[in-house]
């Protein structure tokens, strides 16, 4: 089992289109004035000044697998038909986690309390999309290394809380990735804080998959 790789500052392009889409913007339908656009862009800019993307990833071999169970080389087992199906014949997986940090969440909280919801909702959307994009970045990072081994990550990612991959697994991933080192906590209900924190599992394969990406839980 390889050691955890920590990314203390993930530098990504702002996923502007995804942020607007998350807020309900529909190209060709939604009409938005210049002033409104500028204000929203100011909010996005403010969000970016508060977001500090950090992440972690770890490559782990699979010891055994069946149609509903995956046993990792460290003995930990994940029970999920959905995850098993996605992993397919992969012999290794990558566990990954990322967070947008505390500051943006504090600001959303402050905006909510001050009834500044318009800004709060934009901060919320920016943080969600940025943390999601940071997982894409982690995938790109591992893919770069894997390319030399003629391997790559599955296009799909799977998250605890999705389908039959129960949320309790989030604690297992949390512990393996030592996510406390990047400022993430987990509570007794297996919810991660800061709120905009995510974890996911992807398989390492030697052939491309055409399937789409599964959702991640927040």
């Amino acid at each position, binding site marked *: 089992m*390889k*050691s955890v*790789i*920590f*990314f*203390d*500052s*993930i*530098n*990504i*392009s702002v996923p502007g289109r995804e942020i*607007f889409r998350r*807020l*309900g*913007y*529909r190209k060709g*339908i*939604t*009409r*938005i004035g210049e*002033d*409104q656009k500028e*204000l*929203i862009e100011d*909010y996005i*800019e403010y969000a*970016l*000044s*508060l977001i*500090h993307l950090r992440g972690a990833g770890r490559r782990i071999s699979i010891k055994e697998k069946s149609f509903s169970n995956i046993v990792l080389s460290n003995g930990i087992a994940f029970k999920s038909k959905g995850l098993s199906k996605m992993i397919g014949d992969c012999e290794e997986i990558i566990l990954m986690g990322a967070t947008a940090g505390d*500051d943006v969440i504090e600001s*959303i909280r402050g905006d*909510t309390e001050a*009834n*500044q*919801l*318009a800004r*709060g*909702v934009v901060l919320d*959307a920016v943080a969600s999309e940025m943390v999601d994009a940071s997982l894409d*970045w982690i995938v*790109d*990072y591992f893919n*770069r*290394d894997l*390319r*030399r*081994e*003629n391997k790559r990550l599955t296009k799909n990612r799977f998250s605890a*809380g999705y389908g039959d991959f129960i*949320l309790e697994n989030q604690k297992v991933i949390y512990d393996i990735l030592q996510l406390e*080192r990047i400022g993430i906590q987990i509570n007794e*209900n*297996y*919810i991660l*804080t800061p*709120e905009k924190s995510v974890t996911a599992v992807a398989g390492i394969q*030697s052939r*491309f998959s055409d399937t789409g990406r599964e959702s991640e839980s*927040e």
Partner: protein
Amino acid sequence: MNKKIKINNILKRRPLVLDGATGTELQKRGMPPGVSPEIWCLENPHVIQEIHYDYRKSGADVIYTCTFGANSVKLGQYGVSNVGERNKELALLARHAVGKNVLIAGDIGPTGRFVKPFGDLDFEEAVNIFKEQARGLMEGGVDLFVIETMMDIQEARAALIAVKEITDKFTIVTMTYEKDGHTLNGTDPAAALVTLQSLGADAVGCNCSTGPAEMIQLIAQMKPYATVPLVAKPNAGMPELVGDKTVFNMQPRKFAGYGKEFVFRGVNILGGCCGTSPDHIRELVEEIVNEKPVAPVRKAVSAISSSSKTVVFERNNPLRIIGERINPTGKKALQEELLAGKMVLVRKMAREQEKKGADLLDVNVGVPESDEKKIMAEVINLLSAASSLPLVIDSPSVKVVEAALRLYPGRALVNSISGEEKKIKKLLPLAAKYGAMFILLPLNDRGVPEKAKERKEIIKEVFRKAQKHGFTKDDIVIDGLVMTVSSNPQAPLETLKTIEWCSHSFKCCTVLGLTNVSFGLPERKWLNAAFLAMAAERGLTMAIANPGIEEFMSIKTASDVLINRDRDASRYIARFTKTIQEGEKKAIRESVSSSDEIFRIILEGNRDEIESMLARALRESIPAQKLVDDIMIPAITRVGDLFDKKEYFLPQLIASAETMKKGLACLDPYLRNDRSAQEERGIILICTVQGDVHDIGKNIVALMLNNNGFEVINLGKDVSAEKIVEEIKRHRPAIVALSALMTTTMVNMKKVIDTVRNESLECNFMVGGAVVTEFYAESIGARYAKDGVDAVRVAKKILI
């Protein structure tokens, strides 16, 4: 002959040819998947030696040792600890395979971990990891070093510093770029070049990732700023999937066909990466052996860089602004944050200054009674990742400057080095070692000279000393020394004379810390702006100022046009077009009726305008109730319709709702007679259920309900069923609205409803949230609302 001289001599005559791929050749020749190539080569030395020999036979001048992953991090994963010895053995294998007359390059690849500030690997630890490898390679007799396939500029810097601190051997650094022309960490080719060549790389370039056609574009971005030879080591085309294998399909002839264009575009050192073979290199040698390489176009470049951006100082460029805000002097909040190790304000100031037009950021963290070196390191780490602007390191402490320069993943500008004997002795070698530019402050141990003539002498003296450390005029920015006009009326003129002489006679970049000129006088911004315009005309390159001051930036923009630094006045027009439009809009609005304006203001969600427009309507004797019934409610209803049709999206809906709320609060004193309507509609209790901490969606619903005349009691998030029962007993609501974002917490909605029913309490339930469906709502005996607008509709159906 010294190998460095030998390489430079070859480069004057013809391109230097590197070998091709090692990894894909090893796979072809039997290396199984999943092993460490370095360990496998030590166990199967004849295979790697055969590859080295084949490349030599193909005509390569330089053979890379098979040590790409031979650092302690990667070898450690296979249980290997004697890293130095392994590197030595692999270097000797290469030497024995090709003999003495071929150049052997000690190959250093990435550790696989990210270095601070981008990862958790401590910078000094990274330097030590690479030193351990480099020492082993030295013992194995390598002639030069190559640091390759780097995606993190900071890791490339750590490796380069490691090599440079143990040897002066010729060192090549090549980064690897993604399809968008940046490294995975966001560094573009020009920024990487400026950073690495100033840090002492003897050649810089790119390898892997792309085929030759794409790599030519990367080289084209570097050549204008290159002071060192450029290197290209492309793959044999872009990777393609055949069956379950990634293959590189470009045939040797086609690959070599790009050789001449590479040389023409400015590549001096050329080889092959993944998928290339000895045949590719043979064809390449034949293609370019008689080509004359294009020497670097510059001896020095006046430019600084961050990890993602380069700022070049050239005559006729717009005047550059160094944002001065990150300086705790006189800023109590910033002082407290820095002392507490918090960085929210620093990050905010950086981004605000960038947005307002700063080109560089000055970083001064001198707080009394603090560990300035530690704070500087933290701020450098933060800003390196949080801002794209290159940094100006501003500290009187040599130790602080050294710590900052070592850590900063770019080429920094040091603020400043003066003629003071003690400091100049320490600071010049430091700036030279890390390749920084520096601001030359024309003062010395005798103090600040009043006259331009004396300042010129100090400038010449400091420059003479700097030249001994390899600095050129392109590496220096001269401070014109701004003194206060209120204490010496001649002072600004002496500063202007200094600037003029530096720009036109000495021919060097210049800077002014402008605001000092106006100290002690009222309305300082005008003096600062006027002084800026005068200095700009004398040739000033950059000014340290607050880009947030509109008047100052406007004068700067205008000055750029008037002295031909803003061709076609494009920046000027862009800056002021919006002001013209605002003026026109205001004139139109004044001619429109207040009722129409109130409708528009709510439709546009303009919170800042609603109060004054309602006041105007009340002055015009329009009754408050009429404003609400005939204008505001139709306006917010229209907003709801637009949102339903997706012509509006969420921020517009909320902005309008908040404007409505503000308007209603403003009219409240005039509406007191009509309380009964709201009371009749009943109370709505709203919360996010237990276990769920998401509440922004729920708050939007509360706002929308409130605006539509419902009395809403918001209990917050993570609320237990017991607490909800308690609140129902207290408020007797007509509706309880429950929200949940996750499937795991959604089930608590049912628990709430069951608990309330068990207590025999009467109320309606409305549920919503990302994962909630109409089907689920019905299954637990609740009504479903998909969003805030729908919630109003559902509530009205239930209650009215």
